[in-house]
């Protein structure tokens, strides 16, 4: 790696941020003008949404299980084991469901997008597409963006649901709680604000995953090694962004709804 002066470094970062913003802006703007590549959107929905279902369900389920198990220990100290359902539901819906789903999909799809677009870039397929008169942002980035935002929303709901179910399984079988009171508590714990908060986060995460994955893919340089680097960077950057934005959205929502 070569070292550059701070000034050059700062310029490079600023250019990157500018390029990223332009790409994201164009990807969104393309949703509102023709042609829209519906077939590509559906293909991406299948690969991102349906393809991620197993890992999202598995992580959601076991996170719910472990949440129940761990919280029971502390709750017993206060004589409040019956509140387990309450805690699992709140944690899953507000925080763990959205964040973990985002991270899992980022690991699976931001990397996939970066490597796919990166390979296309280094083999000049992106240039070929432009030469054939197609806007690669419209054809490649916009469908991925639309599909990720849309599918991540439903994946998160799925994750929340199986998480609560996992918590129930542990509570009933290992902690000896009553199933109906668990679900009753879970249900009562959630208010409108929690659900809104939990469902706003995947919209941001989906945006981050698709735009960051595509940005690194479209800006890949230097052959196969470059593709590998783009893939790694896409996952790292999108994961960090997801967690940072999660914090910001939580703060904003707490500011709006007071919880």
């Amino acid at each position: 790696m070569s070292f550059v002066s701070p000034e050059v470094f700062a310029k490079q970062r600023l250019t990157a941020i500018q390029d990223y913003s332009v790409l994201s802006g164009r990807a969104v703007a393309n949703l509102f003008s023709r042609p829209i590549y519906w077939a590509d959107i559906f293909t991406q929905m299948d690969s991102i949404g349906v393809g991620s279902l197993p890992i999202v369900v598995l992580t959601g389920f076991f996170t719910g299980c472990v949440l129940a198990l761990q919280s029971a220990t502390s709750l017993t100290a206060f004589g409040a084991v019956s509140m387990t359902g309450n805690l699992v539901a709140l944690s899953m819906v507000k925080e763990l469901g959205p964040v973990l789903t985002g991270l899992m999909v980022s690991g699976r799809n931001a990397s996939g997008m970066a490597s796919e677009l990166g390979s296309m870039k280094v083999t000049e397929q992106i240039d070929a597409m432009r030469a054939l008169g197609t806007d690669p942002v419209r054809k490649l980035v916009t469908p991925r963006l639309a599909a990720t935002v849309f599918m991540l929303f439903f994946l998160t709901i799925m994750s929340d649901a199986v998480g609560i179910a996992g918590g129930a399984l542990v509570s009933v079988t290992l902690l000896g709680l009553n199933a109906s009171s668990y679900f009753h508590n879970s249900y009562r714990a959630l208010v409108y604000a929690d659900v809104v908060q939990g469902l706003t986060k995947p919209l941001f995460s989906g945006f981050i995953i698709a735009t960051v994955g595509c940005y690194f893919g479209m800006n890949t340089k230097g052959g196969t090694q470059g593709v590998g680097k783009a893939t790694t960077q896409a996952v790292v950057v999108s994961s960090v962004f997801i967690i940072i934005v999660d914090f910001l959205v939580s703060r904003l929502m707490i500011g709006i709804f007071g919880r």
Partner: protein
Amino acid sequence: MATTAEDPAVNAATQPITDPVVSFENVSISFDGKQVLKDLSFTVHPAETRIILGPAGCGKSVLMKLTNGLIKPDSGTIKVFGEDVTAMRERDLFKLRARIGMVFQESALFDSLSVEDNVAYRLHEDGVPEDESHQRVEEVLHFVDLDHAITKFPSELSGGMRRRVSIARAIISKPDLILYDSPTGGLDPITSTTIVELVVKQRDVSHTTSLLITHRLQDAFTLAMNQFNQETGKMERIPNDGIDDSTRFLMLNEGNVVFDGSTLELVRSTDPWIREYLGEREIP
């Protein structure tokens, strides 16, 4: 104003009075501080086949991409069909590129699409009905002699076949300008000749303006000395050692034009660098 035979205005008048299809005016471009093209100027007239020669890395592929507006020069203007591609927005360029076919050096086929979908890419984008596009794909694959490869994927093809698919993809929409970037690069002489034959066929049947990069002088001279016989469907030598006068040469070295002219002018050039590049070869 008195005009003499030496006056450029008179000479210009003897030239065909058509607007050039491609014109470069003082184009310069550099990458990472390294100047690749320096103050380059040349023009390509309608129905001309311009062969671009030059050592590896002298900026031939860059020149092609500049022509198609895929990259922008640092300075200078490039006009294609009279439109200034250096000042155009990308979305206007897409319309212009509909009239240009490009064959990339490494073919650049879409590896996740079949040969048929690759070749029909433009037709699918334009919403041409499936029956019609399939028929046109069959026609154009027949033109490049790849009828049997229609359902294959690029990874299943040889380098020469990929090159021909790439040519098919470029010519299917009957463009007014074709850019061939090293269509014979890295191929054996026999396959190269097949591809040169395709280019000659395209030149003599459709009279499309084209730019062609090649490393193989032999291919360049084959292009200049052969014509396509529509009756036999084969390429043949122009009788009486004739030379195709729509074929012209542009030679680059270190970012400058070292030669710009006809085949005869090239072989008669006394410039030592050109003589060396040509390996002192005469037209066989």
